[in-house]
């Protein structure tokens, strides 16, 4: 029997096999219960040091990773771009190498540049977890979305999931498309033409131009946050116009042929992409997503930390890009 492993890093869902994705989701299930215990902690990662290296603002993801790390008994350090040597002009690799010189074991990195996590992973020995890189991937967000959907619907295979909103700029959308299609879900996207990439069909997804059509078709809507900067950049005429045309409202959901599960990766703009009555309504699993986020991240850290010795040796022995 071959033992499945994730390898050294989690950079995205695109490089993972369906079995590897299932391994993470299955491992996350028992970790949910750990957070319900009187002592919310297990010693699995005792003695491991994990650095959360966040070059972009984040509340939910950073706190979720930190809870996951602490509940596995790892020691954690948070480094934010503000107030660190990054502000003095130090580059990503130098920052990480200096941290590594203090004998750390893992880095969770969030960075505004697509590919930053991979760039780092190829240059340091520690395990790297991508906590969101530019417009590329945000794998743990997609994994927690998938876990939440699987919990509620009992399966992913054959489900129809529509990702709504600013797909062009969204790493959450990309990771969701990779992960969901690998596990056999049907994926569609819906949003204004200016915010849907022209070649998105190449990823095997359907495009809906009207939110009503998406609601008619879908079992699940994953409603993305509309970044308010998009209006200034001219992608949409106004936030009110966006809400009128693409907002996921109670009135629109009332016309749905079936009960639709509503996800949102947060932070929400109530009254822009989503109606408050929907966000707080019975079909919303937005807070379940947050709860599941901790379990999924525990699973990822646990699987990477325990990485089989031969893989760890291989990663360390070859001095990957050490001179680059």
């Amino acid at each position, binding site marked *: 029997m071959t033992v499945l*492993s994730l390898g050294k890093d989690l950079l995205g869902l695109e490089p993972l096999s369906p079995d590897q994705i299932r391994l993470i989701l299955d*491992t996350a299930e028992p970790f949910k219960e750990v957070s319900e*215990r009187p002592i919310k*902690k297990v010693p*699995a990662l005792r003695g491991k040091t994990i650095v959360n290296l966040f070059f972009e603002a984040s509340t939910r993801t950073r706190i979720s990773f930190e809870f996951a790390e602490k509940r596995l008994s790892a020691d954690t350090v948070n480094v934010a771009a503000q107030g660190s040597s990054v502000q003095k002009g130090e580059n990503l690799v130098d920052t990480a190498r200096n941290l590594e010189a203090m004998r750390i074991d893992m880095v969770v990195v969030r960075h505004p540049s697509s590919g930053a996590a991979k760039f780092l992973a190829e240059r340091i020995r520690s395990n790297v977890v991508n906590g969101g890189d530019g417009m590329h991937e945000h794998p743990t967000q997609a994994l927690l979305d998938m876990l939440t959907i699987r919990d509620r619907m009992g399966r992913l295979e054959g489900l129809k999931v529509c990702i709504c909103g600013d797909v062009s700029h969204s790493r959450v959308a990309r990771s969701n498309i990779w992960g969901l299609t690998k596990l056999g879900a049907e994926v569609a996207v819906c949003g204004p033409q200016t915010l849907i990439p022209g070649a998105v069909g190449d990823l095997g997804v359907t495009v809906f131009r009207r939110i009503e059509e998406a609601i008619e078709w879908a079992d699940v809507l994953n409603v993305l946050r509309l970044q308010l900067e998009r209006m200034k950049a001219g992608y949409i005429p106004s936030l009110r116009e966006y809400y009128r045309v693409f907002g996921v409202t109670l009135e629109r959901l009332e016309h749905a042929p079936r009960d639709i599960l509503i996800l949102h990766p947060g932070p929400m703009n109530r009254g822009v992409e989503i109606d408050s009555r929907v966000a707080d309504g019975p079909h919303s699993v937005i807070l379940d997503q947050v709860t599941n986020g901790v379990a999924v991240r525990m699973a990822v850290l646990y699987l990477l930390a325990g990485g089989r*010795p031969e893989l760890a040796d291989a990663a360390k022995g070859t001095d990957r890009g050490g001179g680059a």
Partner: protein
Amino acid sequence: MTHLESTLILDDAGVRRALEQMAGEIVALAGGTEGLVLIGIQRRGADLAHRLTRTIAEREGAEIPLGVMDITLYRDDLQTIGPRPVVGETRLPVDLDGKWVVIVDDVLYTGRTVRAALDQLADFGRPARIGLAVLVDRGGRELPIQADIVGSVVAAAPGDRVDVCVSELDGRDAVELVRGGKQ
């Protein structure tokens, strides 16, 4: 792969008799069924604990609370063996404070699983006493841990493997010694 020599230690009836004897000893050890809780270690220990509670219920007319515990996250060898593919369920149905807890497992070998189970139990509460019941004691301890109740003692060498089969998972009940099988 070479064929390994396997000796049957307990057959179906042997496992049943051993469990019946263990059930009696557990009640005697705890001085009755008051406050008694059985906790099976995943996976086969959980099935054995379930059967022991059934036997005790039949004989004593008392429902014994049954918990299951997966000790994977408390192991001390994550680095050397790598993560177990899937961590099993941990479910402890009652508050353990002040209870008479008996941990149930299939095979007692190095004692490291029991060490992990004791650490995990300490994070769930403070039982009045904790005992250990195993179907097979195969020797080879690496920690100062002994069972209070043993169904069968098997003299196994370090290179041997003891397989416990339970009908719930394996379709039959048996204990087998596999020479050179490596546990």
